[in-house]
């Protein structure tokens, strides 16, 4: 056998054995019936898929989609000017970009905890505001949908900045001068020249932010305090508290299907950047 085959074998084995095979078992389980203490039983059925159409679960699906969409839109709005600034910062470009990425590579859990520390009833913001007598009762900052969106935007902002920067960096500054010479104000120049050129970066960024937001589990769990249930929480719940593995399996596959769909729709346009 060729060296290449030997080199490939362990990696292929891990992907098949620890990624595809588990997904196949999930697929099989999603068509089985629920066991009394977790686990699955025969007979085969499509009940788990039928249950997704219950209005309770449709509401959770819809909520996940709009929370992910709003978070992605906010990330885009916040990241675009930042990426534009970094792409034109000359020698400090790399440093500024690394400063955006650094918190991302440290702990996601800790970054979520940091916001909980700020937003809690007994957290820093409420304590300071009460100390200054601005408010008398703590503001309900944590454990609501707004907090979940804040957590997602904070968590995934670097994923939007990176591809935007990659496209903006290639932008020829002469184009902006040309727009100015032709009478465009800076805002118009950005809107009519920079924004269209950075479209592939926007697509890639939206893909990279929307997908993890859609499947978010930790952020809604900790910052939503169990009140803002998203698909990820529903899946986790079926495998732990509710002990309904077939239904959990069906929702997992639905979520996976949604991810693949988003990859197809947005992925083609942003492909070269990924």
């Amino acid at each position, binding site marked *: 056998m060729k*060296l*290449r*085959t030997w*080199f*490939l074998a*362990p*990696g*292929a084995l*891990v*992907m098949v054995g*620890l*990624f*595809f095979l*588990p*997904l196949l*078992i*999930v697929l099989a389980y999603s068509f089985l019936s629920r066991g009394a203490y977790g686990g699955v039983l025969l007979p085969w059925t499509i009940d788990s898929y039928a249950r997704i159409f219950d209005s309770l679960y449709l509401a959770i699906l819809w909520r996940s989609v709009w929370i992910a969409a709003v978070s992605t839109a906010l990330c885009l709005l*916040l990241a675009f000017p*930042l990426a*534009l*600034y970094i792409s034109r910062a000359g020698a400090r470009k*790399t440093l500024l970009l690394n*400063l*955006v990425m*650094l918190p991302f*590579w*440290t*702990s996601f*859990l*800790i*970054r*979520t*905890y*940091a*916001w909980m*520390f700020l937003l*809690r009833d*007994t*957290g820093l913001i409420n*304590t300071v505001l009460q100390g200054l007598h601005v408010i008398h009762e703590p503001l309900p900052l944590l454990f609501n949908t707004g907090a979940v969106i804040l957590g997602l935007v*904070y968590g995934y*902002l670097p994923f939007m900045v990176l591809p935007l920067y990659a496209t903006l960096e290639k932008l020829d500054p002469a184009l902006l001068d040309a727009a100015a010479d032709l009478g465009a104000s800076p*805002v118009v120049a950005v809107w009519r020249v920079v924004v269209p050129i950075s479209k592939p970066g926007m697509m890639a960024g939206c893909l990279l932010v929307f*997908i*993890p937001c*859609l*499947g*978010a*589990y*930790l952020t809604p769990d*900790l910052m939503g305090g169990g009140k803002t249930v998203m698909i*990820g929480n529903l899946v*986790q719940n079926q*495998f732990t508290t509710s002990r309904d593995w077939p239904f*959990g*399996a069906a929702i*997992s596959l639905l*979520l*996976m299907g949604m*991810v693949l769909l988003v990859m197809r729709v947005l992925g083609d346009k942003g492909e070269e950047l990924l």
Partner: protein
Amino acid sequence: MKRFLPVYACAAYLFLYLPLLALGAFSFNDSKIAVWHGFTFDWYGNVFRNSALVEGMLNSLLIAVVATLFATLIGTLAAYALWQKRLPWLTGSLYLSLLSPEIVTGVSLLVFFQWMFRFLKLQLGMHTVILAHISFSLAYVVIVILARLRTFDRSLEEAANDLGATDWQAFRYVTAPLLLPGIVAAALLCFTVSFDDYVITSLVAGVNSETLPMIIYAMARKGVSPEVNALSVMITVGLGVLVLVSGRLESKR
């Protein structure tokens, strides 16, 4: 526009760093509540006196080290093979594993392990956590190493072959040494990803394999605790240094 962008960028960096800096500052606060009371190192000492935390830290370190060793080895070899010949299904599935929601990866591994246990007399524990970590960190290694290999000149290996080296010798004595900084960068990245994981780990961990993120999660749910602040500072600084070193190595040509 000229004035707006720098001001905006400053605000954006404050948004990114202020929560972490506030958390860090209050890890030195001599009080259990979020009111500044005086400077202390006590919470750092408490972290190391808390046997559950120490055990969690050791578990996390062991899991991250073992998973990193395996994932880096397997991933490096796979990346090298993929560099020699494109295999769209494998590259595609690596990207898919990177983008698939953590909760889905977690429950599918849980279901898989439980199914395997019908045939094997085993239980969830450190070994299942390590296998899960190897699986999800493999894609990071392959992508980092493949990106580095793409900057390589293939003719070096061809020259080695022409001079009589076997494929293995060409890899061992020509490509691998050049690749070493990339391999170290990938390993450091892999370590941070593994050390930090909560979602997948919590699903496939058994009774004796509680990791640090699992403990932090439980404490975060209960309420504000200065020990968690202190622990967060140590982890953030530790992982931050690893990421900086990794970035340095990656950009070195």
